């Protein structure tokens, strides 16, 4: 039973999606229950692998391998290590919570859940693929459902995407403005997201195919490639750059981030949750899985790129969040700012900082998805996301307001939440190598505090506009349960991080050792590419 856990986690949502195709569309409750059961099975199995992961042994566990195409050297090869395991767990939590958050969707419920399940299953697939081909396979598969989820069930951004400074002057999001062409429709956001991510994906695919070809092994097997493939010189640098920027576009690193807040703003709540929670981590995860594992030497040489760019991510994202007026836009840019911390943790190549980065991925997934879920709730009730026009909602929705405060605290990194542990580890671990970036990161935390409090005040305190007097709190168990689930996970792991930390450490420690102590490899003949 135990060894098939990964198959259960991966295929429960897929089979759920297939089962949904045969459920009559009038039976809305049956549709939701089918989706919830599929996600529940996945959640239970991922809970099992998270806790059953043998930290003493480390490495890839729960491995499943099936031949797929010998001609092309592809195998259906699954397994999780201390990085993939927690992220699989996070994806399953978010999928389960997301299904309940979108419980009240009335329009084409069946299609919505089919696409949501496919999206989550594909994301889970990336986190457990030990074959480069399937890593890409699931990666690209996760992009397309986003298009429909945003386009069909999303919402237009209307006029409030523009930002104002405290004196009320209108500001522009410079990069976003250049790429935005002034359009705020959900169709535009969906198309932009899909094309951006697909473009990033094909860049990464180019890198993957070059790895496949120039390793000379004609296999996509990551485990074989990490033992036997050696890349260096111009060719290696080129491949590393393709892999890094191809995958970093989904992360999203500055300046490739402009699709992300627009996409967040247009997406329905559950999609934003999965998008910000786990889809963006596909980028970091794939960089670790491909670049760190297969090209350790080049990673040591080239990862400072990430350390430089992460400064812009943190500061730029934070400042835009501070001035933005749209709730989802604030949370979206705060996510892209927080992704900078992960890049900083990854760049420092220290085992504390890299563990911190991995834990941060998990922690951020929980915190930001709570925020998105509640921003979605507020939007459903008030039909606006314009912060200045809202206020005083605490009177109408005390539960949401309370949960929102907890989520803000988690996002800021208050002690007691898992985010605190992750942030401290990144900051402590990176200090030796990148003191400047650490200073920026600490300032970024202050900035986070500022915009989170500003948003909280704007939404829940002050005077309640009589227009919103009819709004309702989350009273049903289906509405409260997902938020409580996320809060409980965040706080429990924040207070008892022991096992989680051991899981991550068992993988990160050998990886960092490998990167920092690799002996120079035989120089590769790169004549084929650069004659």
């Amino acid at each position, binding site marked *: 039973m135990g060894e098939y856990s990964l198959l259960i986690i991966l295929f429960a949502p897929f089979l759920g999606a297939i089962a949904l195709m045969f459920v009559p569309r009038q039976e809305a409750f049956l549709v939701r229950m089918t989706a919830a059961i599929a996600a529940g099975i996945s959640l239970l199995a991922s809970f099992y692998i998270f806790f059953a992961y043998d930290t003493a042994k480390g490495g890839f566990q729960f491995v499943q391998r099936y031949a797929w*195409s010998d*001609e*092309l050297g592809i195998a259906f090869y699954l397994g999780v290590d201390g990085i993939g395991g927690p992220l699989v767990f996070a994806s399953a939590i978010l999928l389960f919570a997301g299904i309940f958050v979108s419980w009240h969707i009335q329009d084409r419920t069946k299609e919505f859940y089919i696409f949501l399940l496919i999206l989550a299953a594909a994301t889970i697939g990336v986190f457990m693929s030990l074959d480069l081909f399937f890593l890409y396979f699931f990666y*690209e598969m996760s992009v397309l459902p986003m298009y429909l989820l945003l386009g069909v069930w999303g919402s237009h951004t209307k006029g409030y995407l523009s930002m104002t400074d405290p004196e009320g002057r209108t500001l522009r999001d410079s990069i976003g403005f250049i790429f935005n062409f002034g359009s705020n429709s959900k169709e535009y956001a969906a198309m932009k997201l899909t094309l951006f991510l697909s473009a990033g994906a094909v860049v990464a695919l180019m890198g993957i*195919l070059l790895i496949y070809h120039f390793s000379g092994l004609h296999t996509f097997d990551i485990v074989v490639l990490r033992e036997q493939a050696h890349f260096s010189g111009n060719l290696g640098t080129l491949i590393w750059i393709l892999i890094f920027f191809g995958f970093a576009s989904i992360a999203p690193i500055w300046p490739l981030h402009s699709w992300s807040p627009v996409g967040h703003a247009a997406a329905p709540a559950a999609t934003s949750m999965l998008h910000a929670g786990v889809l963006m981590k596909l980028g970091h995860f794939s960089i670790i899985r491909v670049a760190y594992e297969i090209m350790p030497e080049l990673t040591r040489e080239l990862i400072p790129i990430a350390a430089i760019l992460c400064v812009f991510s943190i500061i730029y994202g934070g400042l835009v969040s501070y001035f933005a007026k749209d709730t989802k836009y604030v949370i979206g840019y705060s996510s892209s700012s927080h992704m900078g911390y992960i890049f900083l943790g990854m760049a420092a190549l220290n085992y504390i900082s890299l563990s911190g980065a991995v834990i941060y991925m998990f922690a951020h997934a929980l915190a930001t998805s709570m925020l998105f879920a509640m921003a979605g709730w507020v939007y459903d009730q008030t039909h606006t996301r314009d912060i200045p026009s809202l206020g005083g909602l605490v009177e109408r929705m005390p539960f949401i307001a309370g949960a929102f405060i907890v989520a803000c605290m988690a996002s800021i990194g208050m002690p007691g939440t898992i985010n605190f542990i992750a942030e401290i580890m990144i900051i402590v671990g990176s200090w030796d190598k990148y003191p400047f970036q650490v200073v920026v990161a600490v300032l970024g935390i202050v900035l986070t505090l500022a915009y989170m409090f500003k948003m909280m005040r704007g939404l829940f305190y002050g005077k309640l506009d009589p227009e919103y007097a009819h709004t309702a709190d989350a009273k049903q168990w289906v509405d409260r349960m997902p938020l409580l689930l996320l809060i409980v996970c965040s706080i429990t792991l924040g207070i008892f991080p022991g096992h989680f930390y051991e899981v991550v450490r068992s993988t990160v420690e050998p990886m960092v050792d490998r990167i920092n102590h690799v002996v120079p490899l035989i120089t590769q003949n790169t004549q084929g590419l650069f004659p």
Partner: protein
Amino acid sequence: MTFQLDLSAADLLLLLPEIFLTLWLCVVLSLDFSLKRITHQQLGYLSIAGLGITGLILFGFDQAGTTGALFKNMFVLDRLALLFKLIIVGATALVLFMSIDYVRDFRFFRGEYYFMVVMSAIGMMFMASSNDLLSVFVTLEFSTFGFYVLVAYLREDQRSSEAGLKFFILGVFAAGLLAYGISLVYGETGTLIFSDMTGTSGSYGLAIGYIMIFAALGFKIGAVPFHAWIPDTYQGAPTPVTAFLSIAPKGAALAILIRMFYVSLASFKPMWVLLFVVASIFSMTYGNIVAIAQKNIKRLLAYSGIAQIGNVMIGLAAGTKQGSDAIMFYLLTYLFANLGAFAVIIAVSQVIKSDEIEDYNGLNRRSPFLAASMLLFLLSLAGVPPLAGFIGKIYLFIAAMREELYILLIVGLINIVISMYYYLIVVKKMYINEPTDPSPIAASLPIKVAVYVGIAGTVLLGVYPGPFIDWAVDATLMFSNIGGPTTAALPLLPGG
């Protein structure tokens, strides 16, 4: 050269599929005018049954390993030919399924429609087997002849007549080029059989002759710069004929291209690789960019077809056994996705009487089944996992990369993103936009069969391609000796 036809019964067995189908077809045609009560639908199903039996015979040959050559090597039946014939027969059967309801509304319909379609299919089956330039010419004209009639079948529709005329004039011009090219090649080499031409030394006459033959075949597959007839013909022709045109003749012509370039021109590989690289880059890029501007779904698929042929030519440019495997696998994926898409178009156009993309607004609300299948087919054409087209594209890219044709890899990958844009525009109309007329659209049973087959193929080839890849690999075993890299002079990488 003297021809002696000494055929035994065992030899004729190799021709069994073609002979059987011809006889069956004559029976069907005579039933049409001898039995008063037989309906056109029944004729259609009878023709499909004939194709089904032919497919079984071909499959039996494939499993039993029946191969051989006839008529002094003019006609070869190898596994390559068998696989191409299966693709052609399968495509024809699917096209007939789509036609059964569509042709009922033809004003001048007398049942000869099925005869024309299957006759063209027989011509293309011979094309897949033709192993010399003369039979290339005869079979190519044989198969095209049926199309001249079929394209212009809607006599009262001006567009159809225009399409027929354009197709005819350019087709005849291509035939002229082909004949001229053949005569030049024969003049230079003194032989017509592909396998006898290996080792001939290069000359200008030979080069010009082959470029002319390439142009004529490029016309059949619709590669840039021989694509000009495609959009108008696709738009004007009856939709099942468009579907037929979009896959079967391309398959048959590719069989000839592979044979001709792999066998008789193996020694000039560096030269024709360049030809295919250029044609491939232009086809992909031109097809995808122009497709963005299309307002009519048939024209959109016409341009996307040009781009898909550009993808296929990546395999020809690789010029290796793996390249030909990838081409055959890609054709299989293209067969299901493209025919499926056309089946949806027919189902929709029978209700809304329009092929404009604008009229697909809100298709998801009007028919969730048709919208979902169209979504699947378009995404497969775009190359999105887990669908067949993705595996096909990766296979082609790997084949090209082994030959160090990185430029094709880069252009091909960029084109995936471009193509995604216009396929997603259609998806947007179907899913995001609201319908102007929310009445439901129902598909008839035969069309549903075609759509289901398309879905099954698209998904199966995507998630479990192993056996099909192995099948393609086995079909081209005869090319394993020409698998060497073009750049043999360059040192190979360690372990490579």
